[in-house]
């Protein structure tokens, strides 16, 4: 990995003012401190990498830099001047622009319209379009990055890589607004690109450096080291270090990202030894879909298997596919040796599979409905006698689960959206338990957004369920969580199972062992 490192540009200014500087930025969310005094310096004409695990505060920091999040404390300086950024437009006026992770183009407009959107200038006069002027304006921006895209092509007919070029061209419009070299933030730009497209993008980034500063964020550390001049590492909402990329290796960054703390104690309960039956409870062979290929997976009754992988590794889709919520192209899923007739989520439910989705608020619960309704949503039989709901039966059932899982709620008729996140999650879990026929639980980030107390309760619950013979597939929020909870860990990389790591009590792997396989 040979990288030509650009030193400070030799200008006449004795000490060049940083293009962008952040000092002591703090942002609280209920229950979480997303930013805890972050410092960051982006020099002029450099490519700065930003690295950190999920939840390290990267995205909050980026949002603060483009005015989408208002920090509680701290200062942002642009070319030495303190600024308050209250909106994307204000950030753009100061020359800061971001290429968002989810692309932010209007799909049914032309590339040219997207590039000039919001600052059409001479392309629209008195509300009337002047298509020729618009094409010229857009072409100017596209020329800056040497792109040959037809400006009048509809955006949704372009390839993903081309759309990204349009997005970069759009961001470069801020150069005209601020009359200064811009600061361009690229949030995970490579996550869905092919390797050839990534190379093109990197050339683009090196070209941008000639007239701009770039902040580059990626999960793939080899890329960060490849394209950046310097890397700032975030952990727990703080900047924990800075690395010049010349001669640096990914391992160094990993250590800084993960820290020395290792696994927390509260993950380690007394994991029940898995019941080693003749056949595994869940057996997956050669499962393939849009974003994963040839996945083999066995889970025994009572076993917790974690799947880890970076963003884009395909693990979320595998999890959803097991529940029949994602189409598959090949492979089979066996429950207790019986083939599941997917697609469709009904077959999975009937086979005793339960799924706790990552997006609790939109996919996991019906917010305005009561705790009791949410709990009995799937296993209707449990609360009915005949075709009708039996209120007494439902009340008894729901109350018993409220007390068994110690769900803190004013009552079973309270709307679930009024409970805290942890208690909501317990209700979502209970939905699969009330039928008494649960065999396999698919937990997609079950502790996302929960505070530590609620997390440990969810962990305790997972252990109890495993102890009672439920097989569990876990997509953990962090590597520590996966290591602490799982009996076995599957590492996914680029849609394939890259490694399987035994994870018994007393013989836990270290996060670094897993990271090796993830990137």
């Amino acid at each position, binding site marked *: 990995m040979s990288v030509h490192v650009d030193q400070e540009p030799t200008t006449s200014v004795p000490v060049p003012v940083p293009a962008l500087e952040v000092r002591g930025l703090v942002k609280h969310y209920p229950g979480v401190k997303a930013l805890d005094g972050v410092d960051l310096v982006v020099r002029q004409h450099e490519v700065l990498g930003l690295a950190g695990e999920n939840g390290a505060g990267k995205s909050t920091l980026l949002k603060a830099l483009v005015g989408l999040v208002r920090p509680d404390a701290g200062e942002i300086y642009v070319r030495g001047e303190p600024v308050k950024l209250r909106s*994307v437009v204000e950030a753009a006026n100061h020359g800061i622009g971001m290429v968002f992770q989810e692309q*932010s183009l209007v799909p049914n407009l032309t590339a040219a319209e997207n590039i000039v*959107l919001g600052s059409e200038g001479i392309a*629209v006069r008195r509300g*009337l*379009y002047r298509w020729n002027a618009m094409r010229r304006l857009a072409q100017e921006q596209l020329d800056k990055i040497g792109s040959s895209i037809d400006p009048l092509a509809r955006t949704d007919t372009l390839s993903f890589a081309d759309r990204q070029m349009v997005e970069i061209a759009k961001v470069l419009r801020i150069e005209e607004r601020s009359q200064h070299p811009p600061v361009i933030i690229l949030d995970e730009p490579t996550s869905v690109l092919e390797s050839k497209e990534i190379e093109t993008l990197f050339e683009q980034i090196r070209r941008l450096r000639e007239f701009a500063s770039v902040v580059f964020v990626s999960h793939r550390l080899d890329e960060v080291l490849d394209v950046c001049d310097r890397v700032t590492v975030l952990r727990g909402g703080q900047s924990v270090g800075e690395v010049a990329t010349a001669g640096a290796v990914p391992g160094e960054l990993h250590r800084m990202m993960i820290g020395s703390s290792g696994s927390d104690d509260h993950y380690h309960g007394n994991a029940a030894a898995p019941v080693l039956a003749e056949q595994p409870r869940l057996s997956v062979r050669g499962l393939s879909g849009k974003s994963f290929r040839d996945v083999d997976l066995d889970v025994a009754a009572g076993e917790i298997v974690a799947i880890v992988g970076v963003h884009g590794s395909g693990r979320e889709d595998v999890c959803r596919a097991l529940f029949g919520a994602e189409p598959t192209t090949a492979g089979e899923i066996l429950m207790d040796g019986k083939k599941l007739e997917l*697609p469709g989520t009904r077959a999975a439910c009937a086979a005793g599979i339960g799924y706790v989705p990552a997006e609790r608020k939109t996919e996991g619960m019906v917010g305005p409905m009561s705790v009791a309704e949410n709990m009995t949503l799937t296993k209707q039989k449990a609360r009915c006698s005949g075709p009708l709901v039996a209120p007494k039966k439902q009340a008894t059932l729901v109350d018993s689960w409220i007390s068994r899982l110690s769900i803190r709620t004013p009552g079973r008729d309270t709307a679930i959206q009024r409970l805290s996140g942890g208690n909501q999650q317990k209700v979502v879990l209970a939905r699969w338990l009330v039928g008494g026929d649960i065999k396999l639980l698919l937990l997609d980030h079950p502790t996302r957004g929960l505070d530590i107390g609620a997390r440990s309760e969810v962990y305790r619950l997972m252990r109890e369920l495993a102890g009672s013979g439920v097989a569990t597939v876990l997509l953990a929020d962090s590597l520590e969580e996966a290591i602490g909870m799982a009996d076995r860990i599957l590492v996914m990389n680029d849609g394939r199972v890259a490694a399987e790591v035994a994870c018994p009590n007393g013989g836990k792997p270290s996060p670094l062992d897993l990271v090796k396989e993830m990137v």
Partner: protein
Amino acid sequence: MSWRDAGPPAALVVIFVVFAALSSQFRSIDNVQNIMDAAAVLAVVTCGITFVLMMGSIDLSAAGVMGASALTVSLLVANNRNDNDLGILAIGVAVLVGAGFGCVSGLALVFLKVPSFMATLGVSAVGLGVATLMFAGVQPNISDAMLKSWAIERFLGFSHLTWIAAACLVVGWLIQRYTRLGRYAFAIGGAEEVLTLSGVRVQPYKIAVFTLAGAFYGLGGVMVTSQLGAGLVQAGDGYDFSAITAAVVGGTLLTGGRGGVLHSAVGVLLVVVLTNGLVQVGVSPYWQGGVQGLIVVAAVAAAVIPQRRRNQVVK
């Protein structure tokens, strides 16, 4: 224009050919003129509603707004109720009245956060109420020569109303293609959030789109008055849903972001040709409503096939 947009025109050609083969009556010049004349008012109303649908909103106010504008114009031109004789000016006022109602819908949507479905339903009722007040129990019959001639006199074989509708479609197409208003209406339906993130204030454009649509309904009300020779509260009866049907059959999505004025023109012709053709080939009047409904549902189902995906939520 992608291949997805080719469906409705193809369907129009097929239906036309089938009816023409089945009925010599259908393929006569006279009948083609009838079809175009019958399509005129619907085309104008649909042209207006298209902009609203492109944004992903809905507009149910056409019937009420048309009633109000019909009464406005019939009481301002020469008529049997009063001594007014404003001529062309009256038509302008009626269009402005329509625009005003549309503007109210837009304001309710943007400032009171009333969903467009309810806001426009309310405005429709208000429009009917205003029309009823103006009607006051005595039907105003118009005697204005120009307005009456619109429905009767022909130019190159088509009534003036048909030419007015054609002009409206051209204007609508120009607005859609060459004004920021038209392009933003399209973009709002595509990805409103992106516009906001790009520093565009979308609210004024939403209000403007509803106002524009209201103006088209206003003109529609005037055209109906010309056809009837009198101002009726019920002038716009049924046009609200016919227009939505025509737009959707033409390929404009109710979720916004796709379609346009030309699509809607095709949709209008589809609906009108279907109605006319079923009569000409002798389908019993008892069957016509049901058959027409089935064909509409089938057309829309065919149009959304490319977009279907698993676990899709359809409301």
